[in-house]
């Protein structure tokens, strides 16, 4: 079973990469881009048929490794 996760920076945490991308987009003529935030996306293939179980495992992975909860939030899709 494949589970997808998105990890994003918490509100208020500086995102240098996002900022640089926004500026580049503006410079390329996309003037109305006001803000860009970059996050991570994970596609996890887990050998588990039960969706609830799989998702709860992935939640554990997020808390233990995939996200740094000091600055990041995660969302299982």
């Amino acid at each position, binding site marked *: 079973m494949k589970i997808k996760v998105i990890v994003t920076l918490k509100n208020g945490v*500086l995102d*240098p*990469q996002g900022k*640089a991308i926004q500026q580049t987009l503006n410079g390329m003529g996309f003037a109305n881009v006001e803000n860009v935030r970059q996050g991570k996306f994970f596609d996890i293939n887990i050998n588990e048929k039960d969706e609830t179980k799989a998702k709860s495992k992935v939640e554990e992975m997020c808390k*233990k*490794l*995939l996200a*740094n909860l*000091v600055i990041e939030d995660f969302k299982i899709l």
Partner: protein
Amino acid sequence: MKSSVIIFPGSNCDRDMDVALKKFGFQNKMVWHNDDKLPNSDLIVLPGGFSYGDYLRCGSIAGKSKIIKSVIEFAKSGGLVLGICNGFQILTETGLLPGVLQQNKNIDFICKNVFIKINNKDNKYFKNIEKDILELHIAHNEGNYFCSNDELKNLEDNNQIAASYCNEKGDCNEKINPNGAIKNIAGIFNKEKNILGMMPHPERMIDKYLSGEDGTIFFKNLISNLKS
């Protein structure tokens, strides 16, 4: 004095640190990340480099390695743990130090000399150090220290900010901040001041033919503090 340098897959300043420690009188041992026991040591060093390629987040995967449990135990019992660059990142990822190291503000890797001001000399690392301002070298992509306002207040209240980026004269301002770190933070302690994480590399500055010699001051002072 006995020191141990931990080698993670992808560490690349482990040898440099070994050379520096030995040069200033430590009996140093190299410890493999997969070992489960630390040798008897007065100082544990987590060296710089790219443990696990800096994949996911710098230091995150090394923070899960086998040896880390013993390092945490050692630190909690008051042992001296020094993390340089990637070592600092590992210390924050394991929670031994607060905050995180984010990507540099200009999103570029930076390799150059900087000045840092020592803020707190009431600890084994900087007690009696002969200079307040050291010229050291940085080489990192993620050295932009960040923490919440509450944490920052804690750091300040407990005098945990070890060193801040400054100019030659010791002024700390945004203009000379190389990577965007909050309050120009270059290094921090834990509350008890036995754990130090910092981005600059003293081990690259240990003789006059290199880019500077202030690393010599750091190591000489450290070993003399440990001996006394």
